[in-house]
């Protein structure tokens, strides 16, 4: 990427060096001012000792240190747990959804020959109806904010007498949204595979179900692996919505700590750093996997082309999440 944009650069020279120097100063100034406002200023404003508000977070000899970090550790464990559950569930449901949609699509194209005409019409109508229903479901749940989905689950389930732990409301809400997203990624992966794959499979006598499970799905899983890891980042970020239904995840516990110790900026900075470190490593992992997959393709003898994963990944990242 940097290679491509590098051709935009000016020729190095005294002017360039001057600009670099000035902008270094500007960038340094921006960082300094940011650090001042985030770290020093709030302490100074309260007129308290400089360690008083940071102490519980960075000073091991502080009386609250181990307790605060135990709580944050618990919160982060809960965050990871909910995210893991949600991504596994979304993977399962999303795969089923993708297979369903692909199968329904091929069903609606079938003519159901060799059957009595009314039965054929009935089957065709039925598959078209099912296909439309799944499509509408996907559009609706993709168009709704995750917050609203989680909120609806948490408020709606008790209405029908289903009382669950807050964890499950959060996981179900996240699963609904992410299974739709993962399902769409998988489906576009399956439909984007070269048509010859399915044809060859049916030529050697595999049934449509076998073709899907043994030929199409494994290949599209391979393509979607980087997208899946990026989606994991999105889920990890989305778990912080658990605070709405008072699930004890990182942010909620941070809120509790702030309530007791009264140090909002410090706790938010720590939580932000925690999330940034984990998510940044995950997105680097996604990039690494993507590069590996691209390399594998080249050595396998296929023409060197942009793996579709690139498109899928940007799609997943573009979605943003919360």
């Amino acid at each position: 990427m940097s290679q491509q944009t590098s051709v935009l650069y000016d020729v190095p020279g005294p002017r360039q060096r001057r600009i670099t120097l000035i902008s270094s100063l500007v960038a340094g100034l921006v960082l300094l001012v940011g650090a001042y406002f985030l770290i020093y200023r709030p302490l100074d404003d309260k007129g308290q000792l400089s360690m008083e508000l940071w102490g519980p977070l960075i000073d091991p000899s502080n009386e609250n240190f181990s307790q605060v970090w135990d709580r944050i550790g618990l919160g982060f464990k809960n965050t990871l747990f909910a995210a893991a559950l949600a991504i596994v569930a979304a993977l399962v449901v999303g795969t089923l959804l993708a297979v369903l949609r692909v199968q329904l699509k091929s069903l609606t194209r079938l003519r159901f020959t060799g059957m009595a005409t009314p039965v054929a019409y009935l089957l065709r109508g039925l598959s078209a109806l099912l296909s439309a229903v799944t499509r509408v479901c996907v559009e609706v749940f993709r168009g709704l904010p995750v917050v609203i989905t989680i909120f609806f689950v948490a408020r709606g389930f008790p209405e029908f007498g289903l009382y669950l732990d807050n964890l499950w409301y959060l996981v179900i809400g996240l699963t609904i949204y992410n299974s739709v997203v993962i399902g769409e990624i998988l489906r576009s992966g399956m439909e984007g595979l070269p048509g010859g794959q399915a044809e060859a499979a049916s030529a050697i006598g595999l049934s449509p179900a076998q073709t899907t499970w043994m030929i199409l799905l494994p290949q599209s899983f391979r393509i979607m692996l980087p997208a899946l890891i990026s989606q994991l980042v999105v889920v990890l970020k989305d778990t912080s919505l658990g605070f709405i239904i008072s699930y004890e995840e990182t942010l909620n516990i941070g809120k509790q700590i702030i309530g007791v110790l009264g140090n909002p900026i410090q706790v938010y900075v720590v939580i932000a750093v925690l999330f940034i470190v984990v998510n940044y490593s995950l997105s680097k992992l996604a990039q690494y996997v993507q590069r590996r997959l691209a390399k594998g393709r080249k050595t396998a003898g296929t023409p060197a082309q942009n793996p579709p994963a690139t498109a899928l990944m940007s799609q997943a990242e573009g979605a943003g999440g919360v």
Partner: protein
Amino acid sequence: MNVLIDKFDVFAGGFWLTLQICILAAIGALILGAVVAVLRISPVPPLRGLGTSYVNVFRNMPLTVVMFFAAFGLPALGSNADFLRIPVIDSLFARLGTDLPYFRFALIALVLYTAAFVCEALRSGVNAVPAGQAEAARSLGLTFGQNLRHVVLPQSWQASVVPLGSVIIAMIKNSALAGFFGVVGDLSAAADQLTGAEGYAFIPVAIGISIGYLIMTVPLGALLDRIEKRQAVAR
């Protein structure tokens, strides 16, 4: 289903307020995102580092944390976000001037968070411009700024429309969070109020709120699909 008719003004008001947040946040995020994108592709390493770290920080942080920071952290820093009170805009978007500062805080959080994604969308557009174009412009002796303005950005615009659109859709959905941070009366706050405090039946309220969001997101998504298809044909 009576709630949909009886409380239609609540739904309509929520829709209107969500729309206001989205319009203001979209404008802000597009401007800030464009600035960060120019930083990220600029020839000067420190500026590039600044842009890159901005994107990495805000893309890997949950919006919830950004919202919390804006709504509860900024006041601790001594800001009421009064700098967002601009007479002309205040009269257009009444909430900016009269509401509790939460409206402005939610706006700040949305703009900061979305700008990182806007930047990436714009940059992916720049990367889609064939390198030869920029090389040719360089060999003609255009400077970085001229190259960007006359050659690269006009072409990158086409490639970044679709990703920009999905960023905006994501932002509309993210704006739902504002209602849980003290912004009174947007769609998600309306859902909370109607099903919680006023105790209306859940299903009709859920349907009403969902329709509100889907009115904003689904047509935009369909439009993007059409643009994408047309571009694919053009290529």
